Every structure is written in C-alpha cells, then in structure tokens.
C-alpha cells in the first residue's frame, strides 16, 4: 500500500505542479489586484507604488519563483485583502466545505443505494420509472435557482427552516438538500445500472440455486459487486461536488472553500486562490487514495494484482 500511495503521490505531485503553474499564470493574466484593492480615486502614482511594494510589477516568472520558494518553506503568502496568511484563510474555510460535502455525499450514497437497488430489482416497474424520472429530473435543475426558491418557500413562506447560515441541524437541511440533487440523481442511476448488471451476473444464479432469498441476493451478492462501479463514480462526483458547493455556499452564506475561492478570484487575491487550489487538489488526491483503498478492500482481484 505504501508503494501504491507513493506512486500516486509522485504522479499527483506532478499534476499539482502543472496545475499551480497554470493557475499562477492564468490568474495573473486576469490583471493585477491593484485597481481592485485601492479606492477608485487613487492616483496613478499611488497605484504604481502599490504594485511595486507587492511585487506585481515584476515579471510573472520572477513572481512565480518567489512563490515556489515560499511554498518550499510552507509559506503560502499573505492574503492581500484579509491581511493574514493565505493558508489560515484556507484552513478556516476548508472544514466547512468538507463537512458540507461529506454529509451530502454520505446521504446521497445511502439514498442512491436504497433507491437504485430497489429500482434495479424489478427494472421497468412503476417504482423504477418514477424513481428514475425523479432522480434524473433532480439532476437537471439549475442549483442556484433551486436554492433560492427553496429559501423563499421553506424559510419565508412556510417558516419551517432557517433561510441560511450554519448552526443548528436545521440549517443543514436546505444546503445539503440542494447540493445533493446532482450527485443523488447521478448515483441513483449508476447504482441502478450497476445493480442491474450485478443481478444479471452468473454468480447471482449460483446464489439463487443455493436457495438465497431476495435481500441476501441484493445486499450480499449484488451490492458488494455493484459498489465497485459506484464508488468510482462517487469519487468523481465528490470531486465535482465543489462546483455545487461554490453555488450553495454563496447562496446560503457558508464560509467554505468554494465561497473563498470565488472571492479570491474576483478580488485577484492570488495567494488565497493558489492556497485554495493546493488544498482542493490535495483533498482530491487524498480522496482518490481513499477510493483506491476502498476499491482494493472491495475487490480482491485488485488486491492481488
């Protein structure tokens, strides 16, 4: 397992470096933050002076060299706007997103497995059709729109839930609900397809010939095999969940990494943006390792080869 992580690690490190170069240069192509930071009435001299004092007038390559040197010392630079180390801002925001994404993913997985398995047991049944239709439909709505409508309906009109923010469990319902739409829709479809495949597999016949009952066939024989496909897709989904998190965090005012990244991009707060990227890329790498481990736990064929 160590060698496996090491191999992934070096590959990912390379990818990470490429990504960093890409974002570093791309971000600087979007203009420097001087104009955004200084008030509109600042003079040309003040602008030049500001840019010089923060090194924005150096060639980008020089800036990159300086940045890399910093990263080597675990110094990820200071946030221009927040006046604190960028890494502090990221470390404060990251757990929020992690919790949001974690709860969302866990719930979607559980629901997807239940709905998808039941739908797969009798394909084309009424339950299957309705479940498929609803889950596909749920993945087809613009999430920010759903989020705002949900606030107006559930918080304002009905008063059942708080509009936004974090805190009590009730605060989680809408953000998680909205964020769940996409992965739940997709995962249910994947579980269903994988389960149909698994239930049509020859070993299920063997199990039936042994006298195994329905639940044993679905959950012991089918699900374990279907999970191989499901966790791969779930991994990809978890990685793209941050897209939805950007929107959900913005609407519901959650101080997560999606929110932070958007703000950093808009403000050209490069240090924060880069730290966010490193953090997410690292998280995605870590998750891929976890998935690989889960995969090898689930599938003995991977373990031995």
């Amino acid at each position, binding site marked *: 397992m160590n060698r496996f992580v090491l191999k992934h690690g070096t590959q990912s490190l390379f990818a990470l470096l490429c990504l960093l170069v890409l974002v570093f240069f791309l971000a600087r192509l979007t203009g420097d933050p001087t104009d955004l930071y200084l008030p509109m009435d600042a003079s040309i001299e003040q602008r030049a002076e500001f840019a010089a004092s923060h090194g924005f007038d150096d060639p980008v390559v020089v800036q990159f060299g300086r940045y890399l040197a910093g990263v080597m010392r675990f110094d990820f630079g200071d946030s221009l706007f927040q006046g604190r180390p960028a890494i502090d801002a990221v470390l404060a925001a990251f757990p929020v997103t992690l919790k949001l994404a974690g709860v969302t993913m866990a719930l979607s997985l559980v629901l997807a497995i239940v709905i998808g398995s039941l739908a797969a047991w009798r394909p084309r049944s009424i339950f299957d059709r309705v479940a498929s239709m609803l889950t596909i439909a749920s993945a087809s709505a613009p999430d920010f729109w759903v989020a705002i409508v949900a606030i107006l309906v559930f918080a304002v009109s009905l008063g059942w839930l708080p509009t936004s923010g974090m805190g009590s469990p009730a605060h989680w319902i809408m953000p998680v609900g909205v964020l769940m739409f996409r992965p739940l829709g997709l995962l249910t479809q994947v579980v269903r397809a994988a389960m149909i495949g698994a239930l049509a*597999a*020859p*070993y299920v*016949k*063997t*199990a*039936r*010939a*042994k*006298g*195994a*009952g329905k639940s*044993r066939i679905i959950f012991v*024989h089918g699900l*374990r*095999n279907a999970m*191989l496909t499901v966790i791969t897709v779930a991994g990809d989904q978890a990685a793209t969940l941050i897209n939805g998190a950007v929107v959900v965090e913005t609407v519901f005012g959650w101080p997560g990494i999606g929110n932070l990244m958007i703000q950093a991009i808009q403000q050209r707060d490069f240090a924060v943006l880069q730290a966010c990227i490193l953090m997410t890329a690292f998280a995605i790498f870590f998750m891929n390792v976890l998935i690989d481990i889960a995969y090898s736990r*689930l*599938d*003995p*064929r991977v373990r*031995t080869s």
Partner: protein
Amino acid sequence: MHEPKPLLEIDRLSVDFPAPDGLFSAVRDVSITIAPSEALAIIGESGSGKSVTANAVMGLLDAPPARVHGDVRFEGRSLFSMPDRQRRDLWGRRIAMVFQDPLTHLNPVYPVGWQVTEVCRIHGMARTEADRRAMELLDRVGIPDVRRRMGDFPHEFSGGQRQRVMIAMAMALSPDLLIADEPTTALDVTVQAQILDLLRDLRTESGMALMMITHDLGVAADIAERVVVMRRGEIVEEGALDRVFAAPVHPYTRQLLTDRSEEYRSARPGVAPAVLELDRVGVHYGTFEAVRDVTVTLRKGEILGIVGESGSGKSSLASAILKLRRPSSGNIRFHGRDIYALGREEETGFHRGVQAIFQDPFSSLNPRMTVLKVISEPWLLHRDVLPRDRWRGRAAELLDMVGLTESDLDKYPAEFSGGQRQRIAIARALALEPEVIVCDEAVSALDMTVQAQVITLLADLRTRLGLSYVFIAHDLTLIRKFADHVLVMKAGDVVEQGVAEEVFSRPSALYTRQLIASSPVPDPRRQAERRTARRRTLVHASTAP
C-alpha cells in the same frame, strides 16, 4: 427401465421468450423423468433448449420475459406452484446445480470458503459447523492445502479448481439431485477427465441423481446411464446410453455421432517446398516465457496442427507467426526471409501471403461493418489488388465459395450465427489469395455439426487453392482428423512433434498419452475401457516427477 417413483418429473415443459417478431419458443413440450440415483445426460447443440430446460427446473429464468408452461415436480410436489419459501428450502439442500463457467458463477468478491459455507448457513447450519463442513468438502473435491485456501478468492484458483469449488458447494448438503450444466466445457481435456471422475465418485458415494447437460457426446458416454437428445427445443431421441449410441434412431442423432467419429488421414510426404519455417522461436511476456525453442516447417499444401491445453503457448506462437508479437528469440522465415526484417515491399507480400482466422466468431468481425466492408477491407489496405468497382463482385464470389450468398453482403455480423460468421472470416482471409492461413482455435467455439461443416470447407479450400494451414486447437479429435503434421505443446514447450497419424497412434511423450486418454470418445464401451486405462496413466503420471 424407469424407476417406479421418479425423483424429478419434467412434465410438458414449454418456455417462450418474446422476440422482435413474436414469440421465440426455446423449449417445446419437453417431458423428462429422473429416478433417484440415476445419471441422465441431456445432449444438444446451442439453441437446442437443454440449458433453458435446466434453468427452468431451477426457476432461474426471469419470469417475465420468459413464459414457462407445463410443470416440474420434485418427489411429486410441483415446483412451480409451491410457495417461494418452500422452493428456496429445496434449492441447495435437495437439488443443487453446477454451472458451465465457474469463474463467472463464483462471486468474485468473496472467499471460496465463505461461498461454500453460505449454502450451509442459508439452510440453517451454525457457523462453526458450516466452516468444518466446507473444509471437509473442499478437501474431498481435491483442493490442496484447504485450511489456507479457504480464504482465497475465486480468481486465485485455476479453472479446474474453481469447478471443484463449485462442486463442493453443490455437494455441501448432500443433495438428492445434482444438475450440472456443461460443467466441463470451459476446461482443458485432462482437467475435464478429472472432474468427470470426481462427479462419478461423488455419485457413487452419495447415491444422488445427476442431470448432466452437455454438447459433448464423449462426456455423455463417460458419465450417463440414460440420454436425452434435444434439438431446437424438442426431444428427438431418448433412451439408455448404450442403445442410443449403438443404434441411434433419429437422423439427427446419427449425424451427431458420425461428425464425431474418428477418421484417420494419411499424412502427405514432406516433399513440397517450405513456405514457413520456425527456427528456435521463443516468446516472452515480460519475464514470463510463453514459448520456448519451437522449430518446425510448414510446407506448401500442408496442415500443421498445434495442439495443447490452455497456457501451452500455442496462441502466443500464432501471434509470433502473424507478426502480432515479436519473438524474443529465434526467427520465423516466410519463403526464406525473416518476417521481422522485411523491406517495404516484402512486408506487403507477407501481409498478403499470411492470413488468420481467430477463435471467437463474435469478436473477429467488427460489429459496425457490413459483410461487404469486412471482406473488402483487405483490398482497401492493398489498393493494387483489385479496383474498387470489382469489390462487390469478388466479395460475392468469395461468399459463394464459403457457402453464403451475395444477398448477405449488406448485412451486419450480428445477423449471422457463429458458424456463418466464421465463414465470413474465412472469406475475408481468402480475399488476398494467401498461401498460409493461421487458424487459431478457429472452430472451437462452434457446435459439432457446424464445426464439421467448417472443417470440410477448409479442407476443400486447401485442395482447390493449395493453401497451407497452421491449425491451432485444443481438441485432439479435430487435429487428428485434420492435420498432416502435429505439434504437441505444454507450458511453452514442444513435447512431441511428427506426422499426425504416428503421433496419435504411437504417442511417445507421456503428456501426449495423457491428452489422448483424457479426450472422451462417443462410444460408451470404449470410453469405459479408456477410463480405466487413463486412471492407471494418471496414477502413473502423478507419481512421475
């Protein structure tokens, strides 16, 4: 002949499937009875309905879309009308089943020990008791080092061992009836012989009844007491083993038996010029040595048979000949020129002169190409052979030559049966008028009758076109019937080579003798003698170093 109280009665069973054009009737009005302790073989080719019948008995057909009529009774109780719970109680405990492909029929994510104990657990045995029983069973079916291997997964076992595990699973609760659906088809002949022996021994010990589904008359001859011959969903002949094999009534049964009869051919003297020469050829996959030091010559008009079990390196050798895999040592010469050191033009000449037909009729044709496109592809690659406006005409001629018609040109491979697809593959191979065709298990996946037809076609083409074949097969009977010169391979080595008839009638290598002995013949009496003889050889072999 029939026992007074039958164990299993299949009573006017019919199974229909919905098809694009109405209903497809897979089994029609089939009635079969099995007495306690009786061994019955259901013989048939693909599409005969033999497997559907077995699956219907076990209730393994998906209720829609399959429509099942008639009844199946076990000890007089209808399996179809009894409650699900009662039926599930019978499965695994009273009636057990063994399937054809043990790899896919074992759950890949659970240890084999767990899978054997599962039967016991389902039927209420305590965990420790079930574990003990599983260990005992696996040991009985011949899995070595059981205690350690209980925790291993199916993919960590060889094909034969997997089938042994399946059998252990089926025998777990000493069932009264074992349904075995082609249990040895996916296995090598030597392993097949061992499995058949195991089944026989187990039956003797436990006194259970056996319903064996097989396409192989030799297998039936080996194990059955009574046979049922099925064709296109119906029973064409039924009777005691000896009677059916000795005096078949139905023409179809007779045809089956003649197709499998042994015909010796006289080898041609090696005077024709050499076309293909292999000189100390070795093939490696990484550090694994698939083929070692093969030296052989193929002469014009000759058929070189290469026989061996899985892992013998015969297909790797074919790849080397076809320039699909560069040999790690030695060289291969086509008309005296090393095929891996050819100039541009010689290269073209080689690709025209050597063609191939592969095993799987389902994957050897691109499913998205019409037959015309398949056959004319060689001309697309070698543009000087034939002007485009003559492609259609020539393709039609080729189709005619392999027994298909011009109207088939615009169809897609999916619209043909396996045998027809192999004919199309042959037509494609003939398109460039080659000198050598490498047939890598070209007929192994086909039914016996179809196999016979394709072989006849190949033989005929040789005579007409002066072709040479490299004919690779695991089926001894085929090689024996077809090849002039034969190469017996085992684990990458050539253990014996020579003129076919000599090799078969007077095998010098122990392994060749084992192969011949293991290959079942469709003659109950001879098969019984051979079995006795084989067991002696096997004992001898296992004590040999």
